[in-house]
């Protein structure tokens, strides 16, 4: 079976800003294969290398060594991004546009024909429940609404692979539930979802497989049920064990 996303021996090193300083190793020898239709949780504490890995997948950062491909195409080629949707963490979209104009702009980039474009805009706005606010300027939106605009733009090209960077970050419980429902719906449609999150309960609910990264290295990878069975505890406790955190006894 062909992998939708493949990372082989990925190493990303950032040079030091001062001449004598040591370079920072953000990702060290990462290997991952994600199959079609999987919902894959990419976990790790802050600074573990999750976002750097995503940045490589999206062509924002070049790897120091190793390779990454999406649908068999090297991520450094812009065409690799034709079938993906990306939701970054906390983005403030063009405040002088309304949602409809923003989505039309992104749809033009994907060269979606005009008739199909309008239908697609209507569909994604319905999915993220922003139909009523489509003509309102984005600057008037709440944080939750902005995050849903982000999700709408990530879905405008009906992507086969979704890369979501902390999609529920900063959302209230209702907003989180809605995002979870959308991910579940996408999974039911056979889409592949690769997402990072600190909400481990949520990851446990929606993910098929997870990988835990710590200090740039892959510590654990496997199916969620298999890990729960192996460690005999929930995902949060597994995560804490993997990163070497031991709870202090309360006095």
């Amino acid at each position: 079976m062909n992998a939708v996303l493949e990372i082989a021996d990925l190493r990303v090193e950032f040079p030091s800003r001062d001449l004598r300083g040591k370079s920072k190793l953000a990702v060290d020898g990462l290997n991952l294969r994600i199959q079609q239709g999987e919902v894959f949780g990419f976990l790790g504490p802050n600074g573990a290398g999750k976002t750097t890995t995503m940045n490589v997948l999206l062509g924002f950062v070049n790897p120091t060594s190793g390779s990454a491909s999406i649908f068999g195409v090297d991520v450094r080629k812009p065409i690799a991004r034709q079938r993906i949707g990306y939701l970054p963490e906390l983005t403030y979209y063009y405040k002088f546009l309304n949602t409809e104009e923003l989505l039309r702009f992104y749809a033009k980039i994907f060269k979606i024909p005009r008739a199909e474009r309008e239908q697609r805009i209507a569909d994604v706005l319905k999915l993220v429940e922003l139909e009523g606010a489509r003509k309102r300027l984005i600057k008037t939106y709440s944080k939750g609404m902005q995050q849903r605009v982000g999700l709408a733009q990530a879905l405008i090209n009906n992507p086969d692979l979704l890369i979501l960077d902390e999609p529920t970050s900063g959302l209230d419980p209702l907003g989180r539930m809605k995002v979870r429902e959308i991910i579940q719906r996408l999974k039911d449609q056979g889409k592949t979802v690769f997402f990072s999150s600190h909400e481990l309960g949520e990851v446990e609910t929606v993910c098929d497989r997870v990988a835990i990264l710590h200090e740039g290295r892959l510590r654990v990878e496997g199916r969620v049920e298999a890990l729960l069975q192996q460690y005999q505890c929930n995902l949060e406790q597994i995560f804490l064990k993997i990163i070497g955190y031991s709870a202090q006894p309360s006095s």
Partner: protein
Amino acid sequence: MNNVFALAGVVIKELYRRKDFYVLFVLTALLTLILGSANIFNDEQIVRYLKEICLLLIWVCSLVIAITTAARQIPAERESRTIFPLLAKPVTRAQLIGGKFVGCWLACGISLLLFYFFYGVIIGSREHALAFTPYFQAVWLHWICLGIVTAMVLLGSVVFTAPSSNATICFIVIIGLLFAGQYLNRIAAGIGGVEGAITYALYYFIPHLEFFDIRKIIVHNHAPVTALAVEGATLYGALYSVFLLALAWGIFRRKALTV
């Protein structure tokens, strides 16, 4: 080109939804109308001064619009993080630079048309005639000049992170080029030696924005510039803009974008 025009469309929308352009236009219109209504020293040639002031205001306002619009494009994309969902789509960094340039340049062109239309109406009503050829040449060359300015500011925006510092530096450099650029060869001849050679090299390297300024011709109703000179200036402007954009792309493509 599809992506370039999609990006340009967003830049143009931004210009007409922001207030700065309208403020500058109203300011120019007000100043010109007030000066135009005054009858200083009963001078019948007052219309010549009116032309000079109006054209100077148009040049200043167009530079302010071009510099401020171009300076904020890429830093604003980075600050609001919209650059990430944008470049996560099949958009290359060259297309991003190209789209921003086309958008800013077209936006400047739209503003220029409005400013010069106002100028045409005012001067036409005072002078009861308007020499069309030099008038259109002035608009065209002014627009080509703004192409170089926009490309230069975009180059600055990939080097300097803060739009305000970029805008200030570019404004000083452009004013310097407009007013002092043409005299560098004379200064070089006066200095001599190594410094003179460097100044000469600088004279040939810098973009000569004064080539595009034909205000004197329309103020004094001189004969229009030859078509060959206009074509030459257009080619010069286009080559300089492409060179500056290529330089901007060369720097920007190497930049790691980290969230």
